């Protein structure tokens, strides 16, 4: 910490990165930007572990009889892959990294409302991560990420109770983040930052936070009941003890369908920022995009049983949940069309973040449309629990959420680090990921409609061609994911200075220096313009501050 409050222009300005250097200053930081970086490092590590699970799955499926010697090894591989990806990567991905970093900057605040709570949420995340890595190391888990009863409570001999406890703690880290975002958005906005001047990323974070706070407790309750049944033998879900296994599915999906929107809504927010920036246009239908986020968050709570059409629920509730599932697809379609229409009469530059987001739009559209197929009762009867479902949710979660997350990382990397990465390698990796992704998951649609079931260690030989294609694609995808790790790290040391606003974007975060100072702004800005007023940035207008 320097004693001089105002830094002279010729000296290196104080940033959140250089204000202190000790490990202690990072581990005890209350700066939302540093916590965002801590989260980013943690979830990248967890992503790599979870990706190893996916690698084992894809290698095993190269031959019809399965390459892993024991089916139980395969079952553990896909379970670890699913559990780690969902709770230790996808759920925290955008909110805990970019959301933590950007939300105060975007609303013109110096930090989140509860900085200590924010740090506590990271520690809860780390505790839960250590627990789940303990599960992975000692005994593993073989229930799949869905923990269906009575398999998980009465039959599985793996570390179910510890895994459930880890997810329970992980859930509280999500709840604290969501709570922090909601309170900050309500109370910490800068003067003039009205609700309808908020960046769409903040709207998306707000909608996501509502789900965090409202849905995660249900997961905690469900998993607690599961733990109680496993430990104490009280009949809740196990029919042999007088319980009801379908009750577990209702409770589980009441959380786990909204969690899909936790994973995808933040990416919608990123897409709204990136598309407007690289088209230099106001979003086509700002309020439609903002309200569709809230609509998705709310209707998303009412569609859970579409995971259970074949689980023995009555045909009437099947009809209701199918109708509601179609209803949630409408606001999603609105967003896709809005982003597309934003390009109209714009000034479109296909820089790396924009390539990622256009890729996201294509892949997410395919994921969404196949989701509509699965919401169709007559089709779900055939496609349920096949690779069609696997392909569908990977198009949404990987083609959608991960692609969008990477787009966001590339878009805000100059802001977070002050450095520019190689545009050439950025575009190459976006293209490799797009191609590798389609090669990995498109064959799974075909195998799925042919009837190949999920979670099969071995399979009839006629499905082999699709599995070999898929594994080949996965190896390309792996290259695509490793490349950004290399060139982004490279840029930290060798990248040129980014300056405060390399993309000439309008958001408040671009008006402070890169990387931002510890307190974000020299003085809190007053907002006088509508959001995304790219038309007002034309010369002779001078960017603010």
């Amino acid at each position, binding site marked *: 910490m320097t004693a001089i409050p105002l830094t002279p222009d010729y000296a290196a300005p104080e940033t959140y990165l250089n204000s202190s250097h000790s490990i202690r200053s990072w581990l005890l930081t209350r700066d939302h930007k540093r916590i965002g970086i801590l989260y980013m490092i943690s979830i990248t590590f967890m992503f790599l572990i979870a990706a190893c699970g996916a690698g084992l799955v894809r290698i095993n499926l190269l031959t019809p009889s399965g390459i892993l010697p024991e089916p139980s090894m395969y079952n553990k591989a896909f379970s670890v892959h699913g559990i780690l990806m969902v709770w230790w990567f996808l759920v925290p991905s955008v909110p805990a990294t970019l959301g933590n970093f950007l939300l105060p900057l975007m609303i013109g605040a110096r930090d989140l409302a509860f900085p200590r709570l924010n740090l506590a949420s990271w520690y809860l995340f780390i505790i839960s991560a250590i627990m789940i890595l303990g599960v992975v190391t000692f005994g593993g888990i073989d229930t799949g990420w869905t923990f269906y009863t009575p398999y998980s409570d009465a039959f599985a001999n793996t570390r179910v109770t510890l895994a459930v406890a880890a997810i329970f703690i992980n859930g509280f880290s999500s709840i604290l983040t969501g709570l922090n975002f909601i309170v900050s958005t309500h109370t910490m906005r800068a003067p003039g930052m009205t609700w309808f001047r908020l960046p769409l990323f903040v709207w998306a974070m707000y909608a996501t936070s509502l789900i965090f706070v409202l849905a995660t407790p249900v997961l905690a309750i469900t998993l607690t009941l599961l733990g109680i049944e496993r430990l104490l033998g009280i009949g809740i879900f196990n029919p042999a003890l007088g319980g009801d296994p379908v009750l577990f599915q209702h409770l589980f999906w009441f959380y786990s369908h909204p969690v899909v929107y936790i994973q995808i809504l933040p990416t919608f927010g990123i897409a709204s920022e990136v598309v407007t920036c690289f088209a230099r246009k106001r979003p086509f239908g700002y309020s439609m995009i903002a309200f569709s986020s809230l609509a998705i968050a709310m209707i998303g709570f009412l569609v859970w049983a579409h995971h259970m059409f074949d689980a023995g629920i009555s045909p009437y509730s099947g009809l209701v949940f199918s109708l509601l599932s179609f209803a949630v697809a409408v606001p999603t379609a609105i967003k896709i069309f809005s982003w597309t*229409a934003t390009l109209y009469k714009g000034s479109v530059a296909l820089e790396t973040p924009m390539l990622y987001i256009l890729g996201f739009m294509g892949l997410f559209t395919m994921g969404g449309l196949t989701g509509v197929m699965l919401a169709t009762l007559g089709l779900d009867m055939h496609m349920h629990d096949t690779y069609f479902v696997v392909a569908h949710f990977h198009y949404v979660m990987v083609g959608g959420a991960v692609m969008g997350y990477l787009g966001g990382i590339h878009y805000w990397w100059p802001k977070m680090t002050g450095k520019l990465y190689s545009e050439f390698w950025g575009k190459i990796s976006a293209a490799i990921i797009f191609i590798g992704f389609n090669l990995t998951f498109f064959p799974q649609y075909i195998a799925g409609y042919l*009837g190949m079931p999920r979670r099969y260690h071995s399979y009839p030989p006629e499905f082999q061609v699709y599995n070999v294609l898929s594994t080949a694609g996965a190896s390309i995808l792996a290259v695509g994911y490793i490349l950004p790790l290399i060139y982004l790290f490279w840029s930290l040391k060798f990248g040129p200075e980014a300056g405060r606003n390399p993309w000439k974007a309008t958001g408040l975060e671009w008006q402070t220096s890169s990387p931002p100072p510890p307190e974000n702004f020299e003085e809190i800005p007053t907002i006088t313009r509508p959001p995304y007023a790219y038309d007002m940035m034309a010369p002779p207008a001078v960017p603010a501050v």
Partner: protein
Amino acid sequence: MEQQFHIFPVRATTHAWQVDLLFFFELTVSALFVALIAGLVIYLSLKYRRKSPDEFPPYTPPNGMVEATYTIVPFLIMMVMFFWGGAVYVRARRPPANAMQINVIGKQWMWKIQHPEGPREINTLHVPVGRPIKLLMTSQDVIHDFGIPAFRIKQDVLPGTYSTEWFEATRVGEYHLFCDQYCGDLHSQMIGRVVVMEPSAYQAWLAGTVPDAPPAVSGARLFQSYGCVACHGQRAPTLAGLYMSQVRLDDGRTVLADEQYLRESIIEPAAKIVAGYGPIMPSFRAQLTEEQIFDLIEYIKSLGSARDNSVPGASAAGPQTRPSERPVNGYRPDLLPDQPPARQPPAYNQNLPEGSVQ
């Protein structure tokens, strides 16, 4: 089983065509949407590509008509999908009344199947072509799922309850049978085949199997050996004509006496007490296997169904009459050729015969 390269699964039921037609429709709509979005994105990106780094295009006011169009058109198309898909689903969930019933029990990791004529098989299901087949399914342990891709049907098989699915095969051949719900270590080996045969070949196959008592006959024996006969018809409700009748309960509710109700009344008799009777029946939860429960239900069904009115006096609605007023006590000696027709003395709590406890 078809082993060669496929891009599309074979169709072996009437239902499969309906699913595929719907799928082709949605696939076409989806392809058009993807082409529309991708085409627009590529066209707009090229047409309005940035020409100078300081280009800031003027504001384009929002167009309500465009917004309304891209809200309403997808909504209308999706409503078509909803109603169409719902119609296919509801039809596929309602077995026709004349369907032949085959009992299926899933367990880690095999399928146990019993035909109405008695023969049992494992991991293979032989059925005649052109005849509606209804599967009545339950699980002994965890949740399984009985899926036949060529038939385009799939249904979870749950422990502690019955689920059904039905089909009418239209094409002779052998088809994959998969467990589609993850059920533990050997989930991927819980597979089998469905053999669709000409009716004559099916009869020949039945004749060539190891003979086994039909479920209703085994059920009749169980009904006697477990002492059920001691009460039912006297201190407990008569079972004649019970199947598919409306039963008035002592709490005022009326329930349909389907297989699910019969199963629950054996496993957990106190859950639903028939009006006018006491909760005197013990639970048979740990004493009967799923096969034996199936047998007992088949026996009860053989005593007549309210649906086909095969028993005079068994009305489809209204309260059950007291058994003392009725001549039929639900006991069919004709199904027990080797047993004396005399009734056991009424003692519902009698000890079970040696060796009958499973």
